């Protein structure tokens, strides 16, 4: 099913629409705006520039920084594994489970594990995965994928969650959020204490110290990375940063852009397994660093996309995302960043509609903390589709016909004069076209306003220059003109 069909269902889903409206009115955009105002808009602009420069510096020498990261992490007792594909990442993880006799794995939020289908791979190999991020936990109960990268269950209402908890927790139904949250904590506590493996994502990898970082609000991430005897951090290779100083700049940008917080409740850095002096921490610490299409973007015209720090600001500000929600985008990453990442990672031909699922309004790139030119990247993907012959022939023919005609001013003048009269005729007395030929999509939800004058500007201007009609009389509302149009 494609974006169009899925978004059609989303528009018709009254519950989802109500949840999206709530998200928009109480959501992240206002919080971000407040945080930026508090930080100082000019300073924040400067910070965005610094953030983009840090990401570019990291990506330009990604191989070197990854080698440095590996050396530092290994020196501190961690194991670093590289996976070229999503399948390879799952194989490595399953092998770790086998080696350590893992039966149950607790997870904190990791978009890469969604990309790779980690939960399915674990379940197929006799390991029970438990999502411990509240949003992800809700979705695991519901058997649904996330619809937002940092607020995965935003498409669910409080009532939806109450229903799910009642069905799965075998406890009396609760309908206030604090009591529901407490109940989820009680259910999860047991899993935290009995799991053999903790799987986390990684917001950043710090090359100079060999550390992984997660930025969270619920505290589950810290338990996942310290309680079980084995901790696996699975993330994309592009997350590497040279220094802790670079990280501190990006952290300022990340939390403000994501949730409007000056800093998240928890910022956890993990550097190697438990040391002799440490009172807690895992016995084994493994990084699985996954490529899965990322190196294909390095050095090419889509490299800027790899700057992404997964804050979600682009989708929060996207009017299309806010109209149809995240599931419409079909894969792991929704919104503008998803419309660039999905075709880049799963193939242009497998996500034909996504680069077009945007008005190129630019709200995303203005909000992006690392200045990714998302509309420009979407446009480039559209161009690649045309170049590779992936667009419907009628669309390409229409574009070519327009360009061909517009290069021939006489023909263009004739064709447009005819078109204008035809459209004016279709508009009838009220000047509104209810059914537009070749534009039925437009008129399904709107009228198409007909030309107000039966003549083009060029013909009116030419008449003026011939001295036929003074320009002051050429307003479309003038009776003289109207009479002529009716002829």
């Amino acid at each position: 099913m494609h974006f169009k069909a899925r978004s059609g269902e989303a528009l018709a889903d009254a519950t989802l629409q109500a949840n999206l409206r709530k998200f928009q009115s109480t959501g992240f955009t206002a919080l971000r705006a407040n945080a930026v105002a508090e930080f100082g808009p000019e300073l924040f602009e400067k910070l965005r520039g610094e953030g983009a420069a840090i990401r570019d510096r990291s990506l330009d020498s990604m191989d070197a920084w990854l080698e440095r990261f590996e050396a530092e992490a290994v020196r501190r007792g961690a194991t670093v594994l590289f996976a070229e594909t999503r399948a390879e990442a799952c194989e490595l993880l399953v092998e770790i489970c086998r080696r350590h006799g893992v039966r149950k794995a607790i997870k904190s939020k990791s978009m890469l594990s969604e990309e790779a289908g980690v939960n399915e791979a674990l379940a197929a190999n006799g390991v029970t995965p438990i999502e411990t991020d509240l949003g992800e936990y809700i979705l695991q109960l519901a058997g649904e994928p996330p619809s937002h990268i940092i607020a995965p269950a935003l498409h669910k209402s409080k009532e939806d969650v109450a229903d799910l908890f009642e069905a799965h927790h075998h406890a009396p139904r609760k309908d206030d959020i604090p009591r529901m949250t407490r109940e989820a904590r009680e259910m999860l506590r047991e899993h935290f204490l009995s799991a053999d493996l903790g799987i986390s994502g990684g917001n950043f990898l710090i090359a100079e110290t060999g550390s992984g970082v997660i930025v969270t609000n619920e505290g589950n991430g810290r338990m996942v990375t310290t309680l079980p005897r084995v901790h696996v951090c699975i993330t994309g290779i592009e997350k590497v940063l040279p220094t802790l100083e670079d990280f501190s700049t990006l952290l300022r940008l990340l939390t403000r852009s994501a949730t409007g917080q000056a800093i998240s409740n928890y910022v956890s850095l993990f550097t190697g397994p438990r040391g002799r002096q440490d009172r807690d921490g895992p016995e084994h610490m493994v990084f699985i660093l996954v490529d899965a299409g990322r190196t294909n973007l390095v050095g090419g015209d889509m490299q800027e996309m790899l700057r992404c720090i997964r804050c979600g600001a682009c989708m929060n500000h996207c009017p299309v995302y806010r109209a149809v929600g995240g599931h419409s985008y079909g894969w792991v990453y929704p919104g503008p960043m998803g419309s660039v990442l999905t075709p880049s990672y799963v193939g242009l031909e497998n996500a034909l509609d996504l680069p077009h699922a945007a008005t190129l309004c630019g709200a995303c790139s203005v909000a992006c903390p690392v200045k990714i030119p998302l509309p420009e990247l979407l446009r480039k993907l559209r161009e690649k589709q045309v170049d590779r012959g992936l667009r419907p022939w009628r669309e390409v023919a229409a574009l070519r016909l327009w360009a061909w005609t517009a290069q021939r001013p006489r023909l263009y003048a004739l064709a447009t004069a005819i078109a204008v009269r035809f459209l004016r005729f279709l508009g009838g007395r009220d000047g509104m076209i209810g059914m537009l030929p070749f534009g039925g999509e437009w008129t399904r939800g709107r009228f198409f306003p007909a030309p107000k004058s039966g003549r083009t500007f060029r013909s009116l201007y030419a008449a003026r220059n011939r001295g036929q009609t003074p320009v002051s009389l050429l307003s479309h509302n003038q009776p003289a003109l109207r009479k002529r149009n009716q002829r």
Partner: protein
Amino acid sequence: MRVGLFVTCLVDLMRPSIGLAALKLLEDAGYEVTVPAAQTCCGQPGWNSGDRKGARALAERVISQFEECRYVVVPSGSCAGMIRAHFPEVFASEPAMLAKARRLAARTYELTEFLTKIAKRASVSATFDGTVTYHDSCSGLREIGVKAQPRQLLAKVAGLKLVEMEECETCCGFGGTFSIKYGDISSAMAEKKCANIEASGARAVVLGDLGCMLNIEGRLRRRGDAKTRVLHVAEVLAGTTEG
């Protein structure tokens, strides 16, 4: 001083009165205005849809047609944005054309930008009776920074009161071919815009781009609002809105 008016294809076809209003504003400001007869389209539809070749051919024509003009004025944020922000990208790998594209970009202004920044209009002779709200078109706002200029000029129109609506900077859902590829999403976005216009209490929405104009007007009428007017800023400033 010679000013070239780039009318834009949508004004030419759909609302020639806006082109005439722009012409009047420029002539009233004392400029000698030329309107190259062979002008058609800036190439934006092709550029945004991935047809680089078609866009390039049209961009080259625009560059040569306006070569002699000291300034180029466009009554549309998105077409001005195409010339200013994207023509240099179209010719990124052709040094000679790139230089020409940059020279044109540096001389090109959206209408309200030109009137405030270059013509420095101190007064506007038009009058308007009532409250209006202003819709910021995406390309004008985010590609070339049209935000304060139309508001400054509207403030000089006698009798006109501007009230800001909620989310005046949010896309109306037009998006060029998006409006016919994803008509339902586009209409849903237009509906939100119309609801914000209605909630503002204004009796007219003023804007600076034809795409938004057709989209918003089409949705307003479809939802049964026959009275809220949709006006181009050029018509309001030229005083040609009555009737």
